[in-house]
């Protein structure tokens, strides 16, 4: 029986050799991921994995049992910290290659909390994880105007799928 209180550190994990064998160019292990303190620039506001959900798919975020299928799809619930972001017409660029997430492609992003605004994720033409944009709309369904500050200090929670 699954113990819901089981510490994350006890969850089964893959060794680097497992990853290399099963998935080829597997994303960089999380322990090697750069932190924000390092001088790496990303597009848009910072995005972090929601700590509550960090263990649901294992530390590699794979959705399904990788031992039995060739499926490489990954999913994660993450938080976009808008901070002082002002709205740009066409959408706020969101970069899911950053931090602990390190997705290469994101084809689906659903806002599930943190704002009352309507939203629509616009994937990049090639689903590149650092090229998508998140559009926001007011209660009448009109896109926020350029320079709107309605997003500021919001922590927008999203469910993303990609690989």
């Amino acid at each position: 029986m699954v113990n819901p209180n089981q510490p994350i550190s006890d969850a089964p994990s893959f060794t680097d050799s497992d990853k290399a064998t099963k998935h080829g160019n597997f994303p960089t292990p999380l322990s090697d991921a750069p932190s924000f303190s390092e001088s790496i620039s990303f597009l848009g506001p910072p995005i972090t994995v929601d700590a509550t959900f960090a263990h649901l798919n294992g530390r590699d975020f794979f959705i399904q049992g990788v031992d039995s299928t060739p499926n490489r799809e990954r999913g994660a619930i993450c938080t976009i910290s808008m901070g002082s972001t002002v709205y740009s017409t066409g959408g706020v660029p969101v970069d899911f290659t950053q931090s602990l997430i390190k997705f290469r492609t994101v084809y689906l992003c659903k806002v599930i909390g943190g704002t009352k605004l309507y939203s629509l994720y616009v994937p990049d033409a090639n689903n590149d994880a650092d090229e998508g944009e998140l559009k926001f709309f007011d209660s009448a369904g009109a896109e926020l105007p350029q320079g709107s500050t309605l997003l500021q200090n919001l922590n927008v929670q999203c469910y993303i799928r990609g690989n």
Partner: protein
Amino acid sequence: MAITIALDATFTHLMGDRSLKTKQNSTSREREAVVTITVGAGDTYTTNGVTLDFTQIRLFSQVYLVNVCHNGYVLPVQYIPAAGNAAATGKMKFFDSSGAELGNGSAAIQNKVIKCIIRGI
């Protein structure tokens, strides 16, 4: 022009096989697919919802959940499963900014594209 529903090409290979089963190598028959619903230029709203026929997606026979992810209509929508969750006759209701259902014959849904995750068998 009719409302069309298509399996999203980006996701066709992700399930590992064409069955779209969520749990391969198990007795579970549940399936999942990412689909794009496109409302035609000439389509108008019907009171109580427009009918969505998901049987055209790899022969789904039941759909119990439609998770709207990218809503090109922007304002609220709601999936109403059919009796017995029949995949051919579920409906999607559309609402205006006040929360009221669109009126019969409304053209507000025209040319809208909605991406959903459906679950069923």
